[in-house]
């Protein structure tokens, strides 16, 4: 029993954080938005070169063969930076799904290409037009389509960096796989990494609010010296503190693929989305009218948090998974980590 990250894991996370800080600053993202670019090719190339897209790919697919814990830390960093590129959905969910079907699939050979993913639980597919291919679910089977083979209709998300599409297609021909378990795994990873992004978003929202509250003065004092502001941000920080270990434990047990691991993932998804909601709204309130303007970053965080909370299963879906675990398997202090109570 050891809840610490390895040095390798910490180093990888630090690499991701630094890369995003250097290439995906607020100014850089705003400039990209002004140019109406779908993605920043230079940043995406750097991400691929650094190996972040290969964390979850098995070694026989040319990947690093690492696990969900490693990727969760990267997803957290991506949330912190509110990264526009589809790193999480492509490298964290779609590529591992394809690799599970065929680790030698040629689409996996070029790590700079992205894959889009369309599970039954999400009504829209993100970044479908710029993807090399779409992996689509139909009755548990996996179909592969190129963007040109399907009808894509852009659906505007409130998050200006989220590029959603309605995908119209026919599940004709032989699917890549008929194994529905693959989509349960994809949903688990989707929910898990959405949760990880949410804690990153939450922490960023708190950090920028703290910076603002230290300098903005009202009634002759920095607003951060008022208890109302302190307690608002302290509560948000508490929510983050108690979400992170849940995400890390959920990542560590993700491969179990059972009632217990799925309840943990659902737990992580619910509370991380709540932490992001709490923190972004607290940050908005602390920023006052300033926070309500487009010029301050808080709205980007708030919008991303809102979008992620309903993607890969909303609170109701995940709450049902938690209640199912509680109904169908024993609970109590001896079942914290041990499925058999030992």
């Amino acid at each position: 029993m050891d809840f610490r990250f390895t040095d390798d894991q910490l180093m990888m996370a630090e690499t991701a954080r630094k890369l995003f800080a250097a290439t995906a600053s607020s100014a850089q993202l705003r400039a990209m938005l002004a140019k109406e670019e779908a993605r920043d090719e230079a940043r995406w190339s750097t991400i691929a070169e650094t190996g972040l897209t290969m964390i979850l790919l098995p070694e026989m697919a040319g990947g690093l063969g690492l696990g969900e814990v490693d990727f969760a830390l990267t997803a957290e960093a991506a949330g912190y930076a509110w990264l526009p590129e589809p790193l999480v959905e492509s490298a964290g969910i779609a590529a591992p799904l394809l690799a599970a079907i065929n680790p030698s699939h040629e689409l996996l050979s070029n790590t700079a290409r992205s894959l889009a993913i369309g599970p039954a639980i999400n009504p829209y597919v993100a970044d479908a037009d710029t993807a090399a291919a779409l992996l689509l679910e139909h009755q548990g089977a996996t179909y592969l389509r190129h963007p040109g083979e399907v009808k894509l209709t852009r659906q505007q998300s409130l998050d200006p960096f989220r590029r959603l599409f309605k995908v119209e297609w026919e599940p004709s021909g032989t699917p890549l796989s008929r194994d529905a378990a693959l989509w349960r795994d994809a949903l688990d990873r989707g929910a898990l990494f959405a949760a990880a992004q949410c804690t990153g978003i939450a922490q960023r929202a708190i950090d920028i609010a703290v910076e603002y509250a230290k300098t903005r003065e009202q009634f002759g004092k920095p607003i951060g010296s008022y208890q109302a502001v302190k307690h608002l941000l302290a509560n948000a920080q508490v929510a983050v503190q108690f979400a992170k270990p849940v995400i890390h434990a959920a990542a560590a047990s993700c491969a179990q693929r059972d009632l217990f691991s799925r309840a943990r993932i659902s737990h992580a998804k619910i509370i991380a989305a709540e932490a992001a909601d709490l923190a972004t709204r607290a940050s908005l309130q602390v920023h006052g009218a300033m926070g309500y303007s487009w010029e301050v970053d808080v709205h980007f965080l708030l919008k991303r948090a809102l979008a992620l909370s309903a993607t890969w299963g909303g609170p109701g879906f995940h709450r049902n998974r938690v209640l199912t675990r509680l109904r169908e398997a024993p609970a109590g202090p001896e079942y914290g980590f041990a499925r058999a109570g030992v």
Partner: protein
Amino acid sequence: MDLNYTKAQQNFRLEARAWLTAHVPAAPLPHFDATREGFEAHRAWERTMHQGGWSVVSWPEEYGGRGLDLIEWLIFEEEYYRVAAPGRVNQNGICLLAPTLMEFGTAEQKARFLPPMASGEEIWAQAWSEPQAGSDLAHIRATVIQDGDQLVLNGHKIWSSRAAFADWGFGLFRTPGSERHKGMSLVFFPLNAPGVTVNPIRKMDGHIGFAELFLENVRVPAFNRLGDDGQGWHICMATAGFERGLLLRSPARYQQAAAKLAAHYHAQGNDADPALGLEVARAWMNAEAYMLTIYAMSSRLLSGGKIGPEASTNKIFWSELDIHLHRTALALLGARAELTSAAAEAARDHDWLDGYIFSLAGPIYAGSNEIQRNIIAERMLGLPR
């Protein structure tokens, strides 16, 4: 206590309903904060309202109103929201400035400013905040100097709602050297006057909505000062009372949204998350509680009461219920909640997402909810400052 409408009130409701049904535009107007076109479409609607005699129902007849009392005003608002009539682009003028003007203005000022306000010919923006004075309004720095029969205005205002497209602004200015609550004046100025620069500010929803105003030696007639020199703070606090207290947010607005929400929830039938029933019931109860409290307060005001610090309880209650109501709607929409109204598959029956984003500003503007809680604690409960 008699909670039944009189026959006259019922007839008035039916009269308002008939007129609104006949005149409210069939399709929603484009947003007044998004484009000049949207703004002017709303101005045209104000004109139509005025021609029908419905633009300022609670004002005296001499200024274009019907001299209705608060209960009748609430009935009118109920009918207005019932048909989802357009947002009131001149709300800053009609609901915030006009009551102040009627209380503190001279007969000449009322005659000059109220009729074009009622007709929508002149649309008003507020100009309270400054970069260093948000919640702490006594900290404003913009100045006014009297020069003969003119006033010279200088300063930097921000978060001025509607100012991007409006015609007039009203704001607080101080005599140079004065401090805190003293030496302030409430002054009106045309937004196209020489020396006024209007820089639109984008809100988080992408719309413009407010603006930053730079005033450099802007000259207006001394006639444009409301009340005496130095009376500005007192007058402004009266306005803040109206704003937070009663006139800013009609209960009908939330009753209409809550009814839509309940219909939406029940239409989902067995597919609905049962836990959301809790929130739907809550949203409706909140809207009803707000309505009942405003009716009770209106009855009290009709018999000569004054709005005191309980205005602050109203502000907190409507701003929080609005957020809750829209959050619940987004939860019902699930993964489609993030779609903007521009999306093909966005929810058509109600602009829940826009409403949610708008609601998030509620705890901030018109005096942040933190400030309102201080006011309640200190002035209603008597806790030490």
